């Protein structure tokens, strides 16, 4: 499989805080990578660097062989990088249907046109199908701000999928979902087309390990472990980080 995303020595600093420290990673097309780490490990900051929400302090990002660190977030989305956020960030004042419409329309021509597509338009149908895929039906005309937290997470994932991304960045997609809703999320993520590459940040180890081909663990801005889900589950370092006592980072 070809390399879809390659980051070299990525750094992000905020004043004296080094949130991401020389992180390098390579993700192959179709791969499912999960990033684990405690709060403040730099996972979401790394996502922000890849998605373009945050400028890199130093380092480089190649996507499909092209340098993208100078491109805007919108340009990266149009190139096929789609993301969800750690806390739900749906467009609260718009209906579910219009959120989905913008997510599909945003990567197509005619974004700034006058007419809003009617209900029978292919874009609307495509949006409705994606909503059904994430199990969010019957709320199309609701304001997104009126949805429950779990439904907003589902909508956000649907919006990320709606742009038909090649690289999907999901930041804690299971956060806010009830234990009953999590298996459906796992099924959804496992059923993604093979050509969709996914990087997911997740605290729920069950969800993370069921979906991932490979796991990367971050701690204090650095990558401290990489391995298969089985190696991760057996790793003393990972367990020490999650149980909250100091471990030997070089042990892995």
């Amino acid at each position, binding site marked *: 499989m070809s390399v879809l995303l390659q980051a070299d020595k990525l750094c992000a600093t905020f004043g004296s805080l080094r949130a991401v420290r020389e992180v390098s990673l390579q993700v192959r097309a179709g791969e499912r990578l999960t990033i684990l780490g405690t709060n403040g490990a730099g996972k979401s900051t790394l996502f922000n660097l890849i998605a373009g929400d945050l400028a890199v302090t130093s380092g480089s990002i190649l996507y499909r062989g092209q340098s993208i660190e100078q491109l805007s977030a919108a340009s990266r989305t149009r190139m096929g990088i789609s993301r969800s956020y750690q806390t739900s*960030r749906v467009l609260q004042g718009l209906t579910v249907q219009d959120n989905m419409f913008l997510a599909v329309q945003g990567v197509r021509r005619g974004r700034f046109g006058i007419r*809003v597509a009617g209900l029978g338009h292919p874009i609307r149908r495509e949006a409705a199908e994606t909503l059904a895929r994430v199990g969010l039906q019957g709320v199309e005309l609701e304001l997104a701000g009126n949805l429950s937290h779990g439904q907003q997470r589902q909508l956000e994932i649907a*919006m990320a999928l709606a742009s038909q991304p090649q690289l999907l960045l999901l930041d804690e997609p299971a956060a806010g979902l009830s234990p009953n809703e999590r298996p459906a999320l796992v099924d959804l993520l496992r059923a993604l087309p093979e050509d969709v590459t996914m990087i997911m940040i997740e605290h729920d180890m069950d969800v993370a390990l069921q979906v991932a081909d490979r796991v990367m663990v971050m701690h204090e801005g650095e990558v401290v472990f990489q391995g298969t889900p089985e190696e991760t589950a057996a790793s003393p370092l990972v367990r020490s980080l999650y149980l909250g006592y100091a471990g030997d980072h070089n042990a892995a």
Partner: protein
Amino acid sequence: MKQLALSMLNGITLAALYFVVASGFTIIFGMMRVVNMAHGSLYLLGAYLGYSVADSTGSWGLSLAGAAAGSAVAGLVMHKVFLSRYQGQDLRQALITIGLSIIIADLLLAGYGGLTYQLEIPEVLYGGVRLPVAGGYPIFRLTLIGFAILVYFALWLLLHRTKFGMIIRAAVDDRNMLSATGINVPVVSTCVFALAAGLVGVAGVIGGSALSIAPGDDVHYLLSSLVVVIVGGMGNLKGAAIGALLIGLAEQLGLAYFPTYSAIISFAIMVAVLAYRPYGLFGRPA
């Protein structure tokens, strides 16, 4: 009774002008969180540009178009060159617009001097009509009320019935999320800024026709816009309309019945609204 009716009509007319001026101001704030302190200067620029075009062509319609285009270009340059790079830095942007407002006002003073001008209204809008109770009232002022209603519905249609409007409403909610859908938000912001500047340029011609054009109008209309949108709720079109109506009526009724205190009535309303509804009558937390 006649005085009350006339004061009410004058208040509604003034409210119509305030609404056209403040509508662009509130849209800019709603989408970009920029308190554009140069809004009054763009009003004055539009008024003077309109006067110059009308003076050289004799056409009031062309003066409207010229003012709209000139102010829109000024707004576009202002946003593209000075503001877009500081997106999210509210205080810095507000300070930049204060500087720009002073520069624009001084350049206009140098160009047009300290005289008071008035645009000639089109012949078809000359004269007056007899209204029940109020008696004779200028047609142009009544037209101004119709124009403000037209602007309200045009903006409502733009915001709620077009793709571009949907994008603007989405940007009001969350610029980052909108950007994550692939929409180029800075381009949208620049377009909205230019649209608002064009609109206030048009307001300049209308205000310069109904009243007059003079140095100091920039500060007057900036203050009125601020009061209107603070009362109505920053970023809310309906709020701007209701706020304009309240302030316009308060100013004119105050002038007729409590002339000594008329200047403070608008600000008293603003303070009262802020005390009980900190986000304005129709506003919500940013």
